[in-house]
């Protein structure tokens, strides 16, 4: 025979109650009564666990639901907390006193654990560990970028040898989307940049009575660097992101796997036409951006600087030489290749979920802009060093 000693019940203002009955042999019975529903104010699990902790030589926990009037997930949540606590301390739980439905649902929570295919990367907690993992990730990412550039270069070599396989219709479509369709946004941005350059230039040069040189400033800035840079940044946001999203979605839909199983190289079939499209169209768009920027500058020079159209355009024409145009075209070609490679690389690296397509798109734009900026600095230094 075991005598039971009821403890102080964990009470609330509602009818939901749980009371501990401690027997001498270390067996505790949790007696539930009232309505254990989510619309009631319930006893706190922490209070119940604290009372259990205070029991000396606790061996098992049983449940009594004879006074229970109604229950739902509120009771199950509470019970799971108690059962987990018991499991963690090696205390037996005896569920016979619970309603059949509650027992069945508890069994279900323990059985329905399909976790065999789940993969979770444990994030290192320590600062040095995180630093190390980041360093390894950067090295790996650099290797992937170099590998991708190498594969793209091999694909270009195969194209030159007329061995590369892709559909010419795809190339024309890409050229149209990359070139003609980008004209409105390139027009707007380059016109406004030309206008801004002219305005700032006019304010400064006016102090020396040299307003005429605003034309030189705008024309040289646009032709050498700004036209190519503006075009590349617009294309990074517009076309590079689109490439990443297209290829990423193809990755998610297994379309790239379908190409691979046919023995068709995705680099040749998907990346090469996009690379060619951007390498061909970026210089052309850059020339167009140069002209729009010079046009934008002319508006300010004529309205604010007091120049005539003939003075402005003649001055601009005299300022720009062949070497400047060549520099701008080389810049634009390099930037176009960077945008294409960044977009395609991130698209091909995309995971197999919708979220990873979003990440690939963002990453494509960021990668392109970072490398365009680095390339702009390097090319400027190189051109100056060789006296181009």
């Amino acid at each position, binding site marked *: 025979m075991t005598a039971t000693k009821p403890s102080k019940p964990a009470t609330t203002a509602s009818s939901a109650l749980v009371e501990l009955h401690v027997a001498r042999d270390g067996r505790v019975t949790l007696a539930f009564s009232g309505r254990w529903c989510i619309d009631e104010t319930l006893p706190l699990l922490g209070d119940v666990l604290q009372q259990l902790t205070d029991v000396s030589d606790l061996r098992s926990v049983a449940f009594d639901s004879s006074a229970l009037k109604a229950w739902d997930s509120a009771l199950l949540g509470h019970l799971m907390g108690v059962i987990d606590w018991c499991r963690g301390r090696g205390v037996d739980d005896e569920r016979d006193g619970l309603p059949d439905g509650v027992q069945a649902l508890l069994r279900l929570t323990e059985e329905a654990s399909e976790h*065999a295919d789940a993969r979770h990367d444990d994030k290192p907690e320590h600062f040095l560990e995180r630093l190390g993992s980041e360093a390894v990730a950067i090295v790996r990412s650099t290797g992937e970028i170099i590998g991708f550039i190498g594969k793209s270069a091999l694909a270009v070599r195969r194209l030159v040898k007329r061995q590369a396989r892709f559909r010419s219709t795809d190339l024309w479509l890409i050229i149209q989307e990359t070139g003609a369709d980008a004209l409105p946004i390139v027009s707007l941005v380059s016109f406004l940049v030309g206008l801004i350059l002219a305005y700032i230039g006019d304010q400064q040069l006016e102090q020396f009575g040299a307003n005429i040189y605003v034309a030189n400033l705008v024309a040289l800035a646009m032709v050498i660097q700004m036209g190519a840079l503006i075009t590349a940044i617009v294309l990074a946001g517009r076309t590079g992101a689109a490439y990443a999203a297209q290829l990423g979605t193809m990755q998610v839909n297994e*379309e790239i*796997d*379908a190409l691979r*199983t046919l023995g068709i190289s995705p680099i040749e079939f998907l990346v090469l036409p996009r690379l060619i499209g951007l390498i061909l169209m970026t210089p052309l768009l850059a020339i167009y951006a140069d002209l729009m920027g010079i046009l934008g500058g002319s508006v300010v020079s004529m309205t604010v600087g007091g120049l005539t159209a003939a003075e402005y355009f003649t001055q601009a024409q005299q300022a720009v030489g062949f070497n400047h145009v060549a520099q701008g075209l080389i810049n634009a070609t390099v930037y176009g290749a960077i945008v294409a490679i960044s977009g395609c690389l991130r698209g091909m690296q995309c995971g197999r979920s919708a979220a990873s397509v979003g990440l690939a798109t963002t990453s494509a734009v960021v990668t392109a802009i970072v490398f365009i900026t680095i390339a702009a600095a390097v090319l400027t230094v190189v051109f100056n060093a060789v006296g181009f």
Partner: protein
Amino acid sequence: MVHGDPHIELDDVALAYGSNVIQRDLSFTIRRGDVFIIMGCSGCGKSTVMRSLTGLLEPQSGRICYNGTSFWELTESERKRRMRHFGVMYQSGALWSSMTLRENVELPLEQYTDLSGAQIREIAAYKLALVGLNGFDDYYPSEISGGMRKRVGVARAMALDPQILFFDEPSAGLDPVSGRLLDEMILALRDSLGTTMVMVTHDLASIFAIADDCVFLDAETKTMLTTGNPRELRDQADIVQVRNFLRRGET
């Protein structure tokens, strides 16, 4: 090469993504002209086995032989050449969304044959008709139903008259009638062309309707539990997981 000869042989194959082993100790044979099912519960690695069989994932160890030749010991160019004898139908169809249905079927023919454009169009139209999609040549994948996309996936997989056709969950997402029609089509194609069919599925109706042979993969032990005819396994298997899997739904 005779119907019933060993066509694909796996010898002690282990598959992994990095250090994460998905399946190991896989040894089984797929006979020529059979409909072979790779089955098991969710997450057991069926699709990973399929990726390896279709040349997309190199095994960590072991050999996969086609017609007695170890596939992964070949050079990359030779592997690519052999992969042209595989046709794969992916779970979603994996149709190239920027191309019409006809262009989807034509692409493998354009890439690997010297046929004229007109001949390629004729063959593509025939393949689409074979899967019951005559007249849908100029539709885009986004304009047709899921069941139709799967059928186009089969037509494209068959474009180069492959020796082996792989199907990843062909009846997933289909209603029972469409699923049964797809099964009937797969059987009809096997019977008329003698193609070896390898299929990942856990659709019991489909398994009992068309399978000659199967392998059962287990997620917990990460290896195969048994291989054999699924109807015989259902009646005789003494492995609890296999019996439970094949008898689920029985009263």
